[in-house]
C-alpha cells in the first residue's frame, strides 16, 4: 500500500533491539581473543576459541571485568539505572551456533534498565526514545549453510560452524514501545540506530561497524487502526544491518502490514528477514513455540554487584552526550544550517570530527564525506563510514594541499582506497596518479600545444589572456589530467610571452 495511505489509516508502533559487540580484548566469559576488538581480524575458523567457548566438560566461564565496566558505561550513557545486583541466566535453545545448547544472557535481572535517548529528526523534531533495559550476553558462532538454495537455511544439506564469534561480549539494548512517531517512523529507526552508534563510539566500547555486524538491529513494528486505541500484532524484522536499511525496512513493513489489514487480513506474530537487495522482508519462523527458552539462573556464574564508587567513577568519565556534542560541533564547524543538517542526516559527525582531528579543515572534511564518499556509498548501498577511514580522508586532503593531487586525481585515489588498494599514498604510488611537479614535461607539452595552435599564441601575445584556456585544456589532456592547472596556466603565459 502507498505509504501516505497506510499512515492515514494506521498508527505505527515501533520497538528496537540493538545488539552491540563490545571491543574488549577478550571474550565475555573466556580469555580467547575477541574478533570484535579494536583492530582485530576475524582469524581462521575456530582459532579464537577456548574450551569455555566450546562448552567442553569441566570448563568454567569467568566474567570479563572490562566488559562489565563497558556495559555499565553504556547503561549510564543511555540514562539508565544500574542494578545494584544483576545475574546471568541460561537461555536454552537448540541451534548449533552455540555449542552449549544455551546462551548465557541476562533475563529478569539486567545490568541496566529504564533510560532514554533523545534523537533529532531532519525536520528538527526531537523524539525521546524510552529504553527498557540493556543487558549483557554472549554472541553466537557463525553458520555457513552448504547445499540446497545458496545462503538460505531452508534446503541446506549441512552446515559448517565457526565458533570464533561465539562468546564475543554483547550488550542488547531494548526499547519500550515507541508511539507517536507517525510518518516519521522510518526516520526514527534510522536516527535511533545512528544515536546508539554515536553513543557507543563516543564511549569507545565498540567498533560499531554495522557492515561487520558490530552493531545489529532488530525492528519490531505493529499497526493499529487509527483511533482504535488497540495495539496491533507485531512482527520482528531481524538483522537489519545498515542505518539506511533500518529506514527502508520500517517503511516496507508498515506498507506490507497496512495492505494486509486493509483487506481484512491478520498479521502473524513472526520473525521476518530483511533482504537488502530486493528491499522486502520475508517470513521466518512464527514466534510462538520456538521461544520456549526455559531461562534459569546461570549456576556457573556469580551475581555482579558493582559498587557505588565504581558506578560514580564511570559516570564521571562519560564523554559528552551526543546531543550536546551536536550543539558544540555546530558552533565549532561554522557550517550553515543546511550543511549541518546534511551532515547530521548522513550520520557523519564522528567521521568529520575525526577527519578534522587528523588535520583537515571542517569544510574540507564535509566536502569529501557528504560529496564524493557519500556518492560512492550510495552506489554501493553501504554506509559512508564503511568505505574509508577518517585518517585516510585526511591523508587524501593533505596530498591535495601538498600539490601531489588535484581534485580529479584525488577522486581517482579515493576510488582506489575504497576498492581496498591501500592508503591514499599506496594508491598514488600503485596507480601512478601523482601530479607532474617537474616543469620540464609541462613545458614540452605547452610548447607543443602552442605550436599546434598559432592563432591562440597570437591572441595571447595580443594580451587576450583568456584565450590561453584552449592551450591549457590541450596540455591537461596531453598530461592525462596529472598536472596542476594553475601551474600550467602560469607556464603557458610565460612561454607565450617568452617566444
Amino acid at each position, binding site marked *: 500500500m502507498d505509504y501516505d495511505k497506510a499512515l492515514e489509516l494506521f498508527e505505527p508502533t515501533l520497538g528496537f533491539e540493538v545488539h552491540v559487540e563490545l571491543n574488549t580484548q577478550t571474550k565475555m566469559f573466556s580469555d580467547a581473543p575477541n574478533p570484535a576488538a579494536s583492530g582485530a581480524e576475524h582469524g581462521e575458523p*575456530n582459532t579464537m576459541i577456548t574450551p569455555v567457548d566450546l562448552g567442553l566438560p569441566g570448563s568454567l566461564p569467568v566474567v570479563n571485568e572490562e566488559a562489565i565496566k563497558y556495559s555499565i558505561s553504556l547503561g549510564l550513557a543511555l540514562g539508565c539505572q544500574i542494578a545494584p545486583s544483576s545475574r546471568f541466566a541460561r537461555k536454552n535453545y537448540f541451534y548449533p551456533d552455540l555449542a552449549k545448547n544455551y546462551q548465557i544472557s541476562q533475563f529478569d535481572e539486567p545490568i541496566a534498565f529504564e533510560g532514554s535517548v533523545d534523537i533529532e529528526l531532519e525536520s528538527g523534531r526531537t523524539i525521546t526514545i524510552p529504553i527498557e533495559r540493556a543487558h549483557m550476553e554472549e554472541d553466537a558462532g557463525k553458520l555457513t549453510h552448504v547445499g540446497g538454495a545458496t545462503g538460505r537455511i531452508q534446503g*541446506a544439506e549441512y552446515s559448517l560452524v565457526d565458533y570464533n564469534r561465539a562468546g564475543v561480549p554483547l550488550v542488547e539494548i531494548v526499547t519500550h514501545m515507541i508511539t507517536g512517531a507517525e510518518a516519521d517512523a522510518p526516520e526514527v529507526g534510522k536516527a535511533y540506530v545512528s544515536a546508539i552508534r554515536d553513543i557507543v563510539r563516543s564511549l569507545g566500547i565498540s567498533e560499531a561497524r554495522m557492515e561487520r555486524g558490530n552493531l545489529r538491529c532488530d525492528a519490531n513494528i505493529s499497526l493499529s487502526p487509527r483511533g482504535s486505541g488497540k495495539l496491533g500484532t507485531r512482527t520482528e524484522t*531481524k538483522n537489519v544491518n545498515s542505518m539506511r536499511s533500518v529506514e527502508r525496512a520500517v517503511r516496507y513493513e508498515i506498507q506490507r502490514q497496512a495492505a494486509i489489514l486493509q483487506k481484512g487480513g491478520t498479521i502473524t506474530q513472526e520473525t521476518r528477514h530483511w533482504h537488502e537487495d530486493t528491499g522486502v522482508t520475508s517470513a521466518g519462523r512464527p514466534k510462538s513455540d520456538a521461544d520456549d527458552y526455559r531461562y534459569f539462573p546461570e549456576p556457573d556464574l556469580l551475581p555482579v554487584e558493582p559498587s557505588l564508587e565504581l558506578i560514580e567513577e564511570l559516570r564521571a568519565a562519560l564523554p559528552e552526550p551526543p546531543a550536546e556534542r551536536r550543539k558544540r560541533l555546530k558552533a565549532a564547524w561554522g557550517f550553515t544550517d543546511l550543511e549541518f543538517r546534511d551532515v547530521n542526516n548522513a550520520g557523519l559527525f564522528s567521521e568529520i570530527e575525526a577527519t578534522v582531528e587528523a588535520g583537515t579543515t571542517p569544510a574540507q572534511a564535509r566536502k569529501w564525506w557528504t560529496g564524493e564518499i557519500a556518492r560512492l556509498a550510495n552506489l554501493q548501498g553501504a554506509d559512508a563510514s564503511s568505505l574509508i577511514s577518517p585518517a585516510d580522508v585526511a591523508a587524501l586532503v593533505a596530498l591535495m594541499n601538498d600539490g601531489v593531487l588535484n581534485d580529479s586525481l584525488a577522486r581517482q585515489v579515493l576510488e582506489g582506497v575504497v576498492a581496498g588498494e591501500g592508503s591514499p599514498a599506496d594508491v598514488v604510488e600503485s596507480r601512478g596518479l601523482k601530479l607532474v611537479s617537474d616543469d620540464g614535461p609541462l613545458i614540452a607539452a605547452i610548447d607543443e600545444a602552442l605550436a599546434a595552435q598559432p592563432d591562440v599564441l597570437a591572441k595571447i601575445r595580443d594580451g587576450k589572456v583568456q584565450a590561453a584556456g584552449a592551450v591549457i585544456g590541450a596540455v591537461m589532456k596531453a598530461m592525462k589530467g596529472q598536472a596542476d592547472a594553475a601551474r600550467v596556466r602560469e607556464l603557458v603565459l610565460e612561454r607565450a610571452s617568452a617566444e
Partner: protein
Amino acid sequence: MTDTNPGAITSEVVSHLASLARIALTTDEIEKLTGELGAIVNSVAKVSEVATDDVPATSHPIPLSNVFRADVPGVTLTTEQALAGAPEHDGSRFAVSAILGEEQ
C-alpha cells in the same frame, strides 16, 4: 507453548522438549521419562515448602559476587584440538546436519 504450571512434567512437555532437542523418543520412553523427570522436579519442588516470601531467591550456594577476570588474552585451542571431538568437520569448521527452522 505457555506454561501455566511450569513445574508440571506431562508427556506433552517431554515430547516437546525432545523435538526441540532433536531426540527421537518412543512412546514408552516418553512415558518413562515423564515419570522420572516428574519425580526429580517434585523433589526439587520441596524447596518451595520452606521458602517463604522473605527468603530471597538464590542461584548459588556460596555468598560470593563479583568474581571477575582481567581482560587479557590467554591460550587458545588449535584447530586440531578444537575439532578433535567433532564427529564431522571440514578441517577447520564443525559440520552439522541440515538445520530446519531459523537462526536464533
